[in-house]
């Protein structure tokens, strides 16, 4: 199988290139089929890879070519698949395939379809290469490539000013993280003299503790950017300006989890540094909590899901930080399914509501779009952690991990966050699908989405229902035994059933309480959400205004930066640099105007010069290079 590995990323790339080159004129609508088929083929090819890994428990690798040969040092492009990668492969191609199918319906009639279907497989290609890389440089290249795809897709409707701004914001914010990431990779190279995973991980212990901590934190900086952790998560909600399938694929299921993936990949490094892990855990917990609180106050259905994503990413991050590695990856996988489902469901709602995203103008949609409703409900329940859906198992395991590895504070935060999770999820469900119809029935005629859109929803809903059983029984499930190979030195904790039961009970209670509160608030109307908001006063305001993070950035970073830039422009650039440049240019102009006399424009003169040059060179060679005068 390893000799066919290259096909997995190649097919989407080919599809992307074909669609990009001839999509506009020749393929037009058939571009979508090329892309979908390519990703489907990748998905089908990924299955035997998975099976082989399961059977052999040995990583696969295929050397493609040497990218940068430079003396002793060379950068090979080698595809590397171990257990972690295999899971990622299935997630990326599987969710990718469903999103492609969904997009056929969602993007129908858009003039830029061919463009969309060349970016989307390009993203799949980049993501696949990212997870299949065997060294940090290739990883970094495709890390940037997925960033680029994200940029392109967020700004897909670039004529919309807000979309363009969001794309820019996502790109720039990510650059901050990537900057740290890049430095981290450089530091790895400086420290270990190589950037291949295997070689680096073999000699992790050779470096000082401080160096390792710094490397780990720098790598985590990248993850902060890409996986939208505090303080860089601001881009992700804005990224919802892109088409909804993009949000589902990139900003929920795959790309944003790249940060988590990288940290898991760099497990040997991170694991060496308890300080770094502590930082990761704190940041993750803070992110999870803050995002969850914001999510409760949002009215835009996609924003709710987006903040939910940030929150869940926080969960994964602090799972990493607390040492629950497998739980983090487990949650990554389940999250990919139910968050993809939620986004696609949200997209289906938006599609059915004629591009309306505000939940205040929805309500009572249950009867109009039953499939969307049920699948969305399953996704929401999975996200909220209702037993026995996927989210319950993974999230519960993360919380269990905090207790197991003695992070009590974080555990408390996690429980609180879980409560908020339940709150915002069911708030969204009830506001959208239950209650009175708040939209204008004259203008809006809600309808169920076409089959190409609902079928992916059903498939994802199935996985959201069942994926959790990969990790059953907790801490001893199939996924744990499978993934443990990717985390050498880690052992599965032996947890008493009673402990598991207690945590499961608490989690379920919290989730159901959230459900009940929202039921009262939006269906029974016995509690007034506005009243509670008024009761909480400043706290609500804080959450509703996204903890003023954008404003803080504006004051702390953007404005000084703008001012500094103005200074640079007005004085340094206009006066100093331009002056210098213009002076140099004037000098060059003057000199060249003198030299220009040599440029007669007469071919004859040029030919003479060529001949003269030849004569001189041959003469010089005869004088110095031959044995003529020896």
């Amino acid at each position: 199988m390893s000799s066919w590995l290259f096909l997995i990323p190649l097919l989407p790339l080919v599809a992307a290139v074909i669609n990009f080159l001839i999509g506009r004129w020749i393929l037009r609508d058939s571009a979508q089929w090329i892309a979908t088929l390519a990703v489907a083929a990748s998905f089908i090819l990924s299955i035997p890879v998975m099976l082989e890994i399961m059977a052999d428990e040995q990583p696969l690798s295929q050397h493609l070519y040497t990218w940068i040969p430079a003396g002793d040092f060379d950068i090979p492009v080698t595809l590397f698949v171990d257990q972690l990668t295999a899971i990622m492969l299935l997630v990326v191609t599987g969710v990718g395939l469903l999103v492609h199918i969904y997009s056929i319906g969602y993007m129908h009639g858009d003039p830029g379809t061919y463009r969309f279907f060349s970016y989307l497989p390009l993203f799949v290609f980049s993501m696949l290469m990212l997870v299949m890389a065997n060294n940090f440089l290739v990883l970094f290249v495709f890390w940037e490539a997925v960033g680029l795809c994200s940029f392109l897709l967020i700004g897909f409707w670039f004529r919309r000013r807000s979309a363009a701004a969001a794309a820019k914001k996502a790109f720039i914010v990510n650059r901050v993280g990537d900057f740290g990431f890049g430095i981290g990779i450089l530091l790895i190279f400086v420290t270990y003299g190589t950037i291949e995973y295997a070689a680096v991980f073999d000699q992790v212990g050779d470096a000082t503790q401080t160096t390792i901590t710094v490397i780990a934190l720098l790598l985590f900086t990248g993850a902060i950017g890409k996986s939208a952790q505090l303080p860089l998560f601001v881009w992700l909600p804005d990224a919802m300006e892109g088409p909804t399938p993009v949000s589902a694929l990139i900003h929920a299921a795959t790309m944003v989890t790249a940060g988590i993936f990288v940290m898991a990949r760099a497990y040997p490094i991170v694991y060496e540094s308890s300080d770094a892990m502590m930082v990761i855990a704190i940041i993750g917990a803070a992110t999870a909590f803050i995002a969850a609180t914001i999510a409760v106050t949002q009215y835009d259905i996609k924003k709710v899901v987006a903040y939910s994503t940030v929150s869940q990413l926080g969960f994964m991050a602090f799972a990493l930080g607390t040492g629950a590695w497998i739980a983090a990856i487990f949650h990554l996988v389940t999250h990919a399914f139910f968050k993809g489902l939620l986004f696609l469901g949200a997209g289906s709602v938006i599609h059915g509501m004629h591009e309306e995203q505000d939940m205040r103008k929805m309500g009572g949609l249950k009867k109009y779009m039953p499939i969307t409703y049920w699948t969305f409900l399953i996704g929401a329940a999975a996200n909220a952690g209702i037993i026995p859906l996927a989210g319950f198992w993974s999230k519960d395991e993360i919380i269990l991990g905090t207790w197991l590895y003695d992070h009590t504070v974080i555990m408390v935060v996690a429980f609180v966050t879980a409560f908020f999770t339940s709150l915002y999820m069911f708030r969204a469900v009830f506001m959208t699908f239950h209650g009175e119809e708040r939209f204008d029935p004259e203008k809006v005629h809600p309808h169920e989405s076409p089959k190409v859109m609902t079928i992916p929803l059903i498939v994802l809903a199935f996985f959201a229902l069942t994926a959790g059983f990969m990790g059953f029984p907790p801490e001893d499930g199939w996924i744990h035994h499978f993934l443990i190979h990717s985390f050498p030195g880690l052992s599965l904790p032996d947890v008493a059933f009673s402990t598991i039961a207690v945590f499961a009970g608490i989690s379920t209670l919290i989730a159901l309480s959230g459900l009940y509160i929202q039921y009262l608030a939006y269906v029974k109307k016995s509690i007034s959400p506005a009243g509670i908001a008024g009761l909480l006063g400043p706290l609500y305001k804080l959450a509703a205004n996204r903890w003023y993070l954008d404003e803080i950035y504006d004051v702390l970073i953007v404005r000084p930066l703008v001012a500094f830039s103005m200074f640079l422009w007005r004085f340094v650039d206009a006066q100093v640099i331009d002056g210098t440049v213009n002076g140099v240019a004037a000098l060059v102009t003057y000199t060249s105007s003198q030299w220009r006399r040599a440029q007669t424009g007469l071919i004859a003169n040029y030919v003479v010069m060529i001949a003269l040059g030849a004569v001189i060179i041959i003469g010089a060679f005869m004088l110095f290079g031959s044995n003529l005068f020896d």
Partner: protein
Amino acid sequence: MSELMPEHFMFLSAALFIIGMVGVLTRNNVLVIFMCVELMLTAVNISFVGFAWEFNQLTGQIFALFVIAIAAAEAVIGLGIIMALTRQRDTVDINQVRELRQ
């Protein structure tokens, strides 16, 4: 010199090449210059073929073959340019063509 020596063809090649070069340098007519360039290419071909003969190889001949093929392409384009030039400028005098200056 009772036998055919490599020096024979090398001198022939050199002589033709230099004649061609002198022609390029001294003539004004674009077409004659063009012919001189063809002569220089042929001179190089003699070298290729000669070395191939000297070392019992065919690589030189194959190189010469490629040179001829490329020379044909060059002739087509060159003459096309000259035709366009005469159409536009009404001249084949190389000293009246100063388009390269800008």
